[in-house]
């Protein structure tokens, strides 16, 4: 200090966590809000069509800090030019909204979203929080075993960061008590206890998912989009939750063929529909590559139900064959703008097997319930608990 009226100091701020605590609370609220809006978010185009970005922006309305305010778009605002501005100059151009976006509230003028950044994986984890692969069984051949670290032992030697405080203090108290004294004495090196770990291998059941999609001419952009949303999340989910899931993509019109994931989602074809073709291919693939002895097999098929009527009986027969080798067969029918009197769905209603599930989806918000229906775990066989 030099006699003038000021003080300068530097404190230890390392315990000051206020901002972090409230930030955490804010994050919590973001998650709550996302969960509440999952049905809308699941079919959000910008997420499904995202181009490989890891982090996506999820629009949330409920986290705005509401107060009375002017309509920003109807106000005049002040700005500053570089000296050469003229009346009529454009200061800022709003990005054009992508076409085909639904009737979301975001279309209203002057309305803005609070956008939360989340990763797709986080979002997938939220969507599938209570879901799992149904009817999972321990199969013979665990193909890949995943490594994991488990703290399962306590030793007297170890590295300082792994000190087991509770046991160390217990030891000290014990030692003291043996001397007939109360309380906690000074901790000596003999008291120290360390947690140690073992590498364990987690054996997971193997599962293969057969993703089948109708790509015939009657599947319009909307129908494809719905199927695409469903498979998008299904793939995310399976890959985040299980190390050991294989996915086979099968596209069909009157004939079926195996495709890559990318082709599956991007290629469009045309022509009529013969669903039996894809079931037949699925059965062949199962026979050749995925023995039901070793794999849990899940088959999902999406179509608009506009199948050749003469083919329907064959479909039923093949579905029944699939049910003999699969843990679950799912059929999703997307109700497009046409109305069909005889759809595959009505045919499939005749199938009476607990391992067969069908849903019909009318609009975007139907994707989330469909996911829930397909992946809800059967009450008697909770999938994930059978894993380890």
């Amino acid at each position: 200090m030099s006699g003038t009226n000021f003080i300068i100091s530097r404190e230890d701020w390392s315990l000051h966590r206020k901002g972090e605590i409230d930030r955490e609370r804010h994050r919590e609220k973001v998650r709550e809000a996302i969960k509440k809006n999952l049905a809308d978010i699941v079919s959000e185009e910008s997420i499904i069509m995202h181009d490989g970005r890891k982090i996506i922006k999820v629009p949330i309305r409920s986290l705005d800090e509401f107060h009375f305010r002017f309509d920003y778009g109807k106000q005049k605002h002040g700005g500053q030019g570089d000296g050469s501005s003229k009346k009529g100059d454009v200061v800022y151009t709003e990005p054009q909204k992508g076409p085909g976006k639904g009737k979301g509230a975001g279309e209203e003028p002057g309305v803005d979203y609070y956008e939360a950044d989340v990763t797709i994986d986080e979002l997938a984890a939220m969507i599938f929080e209570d879901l799992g692969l149904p009817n999972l069984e321990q199969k013979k051949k665990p193909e890949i075993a995943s490594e994991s670290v488990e703290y399962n032992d306590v030793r007297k030697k170890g590295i300082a960061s792994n000190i087991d405080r509770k046991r160390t203090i217990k030891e000290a108290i014990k030692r003291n008590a043996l001397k007939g004294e109360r309380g906690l004495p000074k901790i000596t090196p003999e008291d120290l206890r360390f947690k140690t770990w073992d590498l364990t291998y987690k054996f997971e059941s193997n599962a293969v998912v057969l993703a089948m999609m109708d790509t015939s001419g009657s599947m319009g952009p909307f129908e494809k989009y719905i199927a695409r949303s469903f498979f998008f999340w299904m793939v995310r989910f399976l890959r985040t939750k299980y190390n050991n899931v294989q996915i086979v993509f099968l596209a069909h019109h009157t004939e079926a063929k195996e495709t890559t994931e990318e082709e599956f989602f991007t290629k469009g074809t045309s022509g009529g529909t013969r669903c039996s073709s894809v079931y037949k291919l699925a059965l062949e693939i199962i026979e050749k590559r995925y023995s039901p002895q070793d794999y849990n097999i899940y088959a999902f098929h999406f179509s608009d139900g506009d199948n050749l009527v003469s083919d329907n009986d064959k479909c039923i027969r093949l579905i029944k064959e699939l049910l003999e080798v699969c843990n679950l067969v799912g059929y999703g029918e997307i109700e497009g703008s046409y109305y069909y009197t005889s759809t595959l769905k009505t045919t499939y209603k005749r199938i009476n097997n607990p391992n067969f599930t069908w849903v019909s989806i009318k609009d975007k918000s139907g994707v989330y319930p469909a996911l829930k229906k397909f992946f809800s775990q059967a009450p008697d066989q909770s999938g994930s608990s059978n894993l380890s």
Partner: protein
Amino acid sequence: MDPKEELMLLEDSLDRITEKAKELGLDFYDMFFEICPADILYTFGAYGMPTRFSHWSFGKAYHRMKTQYDYNLSRIYEMVINSNPCYAFLLEGNSIIQNKLVIAHVLGHCDFFKNNAYFKNTSRGMVESMAAAAERFREYEFKYGRPKVESFIDAAIAISEHIEPRVMIKKKNEKEGRRQGRKESCRIERSPSPYDDLWDLEKGQECQEDCSEKEKIFPPEPEKDLMLFIEQNSRDLDDWQRDIISVLRQEMLFFWPQMETKIMNEGWASYWHLRIMRDLDLDESETLEFAKMHSGIIQTSRTRINPYTLGLKIFEDIEKRWDNPTPEEKEKYGRPGGEGKQKIFEVRATENDISFIRNYLTRELVEELDLYLYKKVGNEWKIVDKEWQTVRDGIVTSLKNCGYPYITVQNADYNKHGELYLKHHYEGIELDVYYVEKTIPHLYTLWGRPIHLETTLDNKRILFSYDGEKNNKKFL
């Protein structure tokens, strides 16, 4: 650099800078400087105070600011509190030259806090009051549960801008108003509180009134201070809830003068960091670093007016015009010249942003700074006005009531059912309808009965209502 050595160097420059500032006529409180790491400074920035109650909205602000800092998008160098002694926080890692500029800037702010008329009634012990309030809020959370306290704060924050900052001026009218309105308010039951004896003081006054007089509308005069009005007149609030409203209102009263003098305050501080730094002996590299930092501060933007730049330019212009008046100014206003310094000190003491802009933003400045007004046309924002008076008045309009809509309580017993009738005083700019419909439910939480808000849309008067379950609107 070794932290100790750094601190000594800093102390040395502080010594010189405060000396210089005093010599130049700045008048500030005792200063308390604290060096803190970025996450702490940004925490303070988000809360506006070193200690303030917990709320997720501060967490949100902190997250935004911190992220920008982490990505190197923006940086705050300091944060200064209107208090006595004056607390100022410097960012750890500022270079010596950055800190010199920041210190000079901070002294400018402190001089402004101490001498500007609008700060006259701010509590200089707010650091402590806010810390105490934070502690009480935390106790409420323990006692009544976080969800309950949090959602009540959500509601109170939603209308926290609606206060009457001219507390002192208002006083007189209020007294009259209260006497007239008493009749009606007699019927409002107040939950017993430890301060009941204070209300008793007014009893004598009341009894002199003729109590059989016809019913009057309450409040007798439209009331701008929604926060105070609700705190005093809402029927079913618990003490802790009234306390929350009261605290938020006090904090808003404290921050309001800073909001209504943003341009002046930043301009003044920038003026002084420039002035003081020029007087210090800087070597070449220091001068360069200083120039870089200063130009960052006064960087202009096409979509908003930088308060630092505008404020600084106006102060410099005033000084110039009072030091060397034109012959016309000499003759017309009897301005002798050489009074520049005196004039800017006078302006910093008596004006706020609105009067500052209205009185001192000249045609020459508007043109030199290339200021304009822009507006949304289709999906483009276009410059619509360059005429200097329109631009000046446009800026003034945007500063009115610190940019918040002017809303008053008209009737606290609407429909004879204790419903709250509010009116937005429409002055040509419509409200954000979506926000209105989301905000009145918050008011319902505070008032406990249906809420109505009258405003104007498409030149028609419209009433938004919320009855506890749903929104509804009708043209009047």
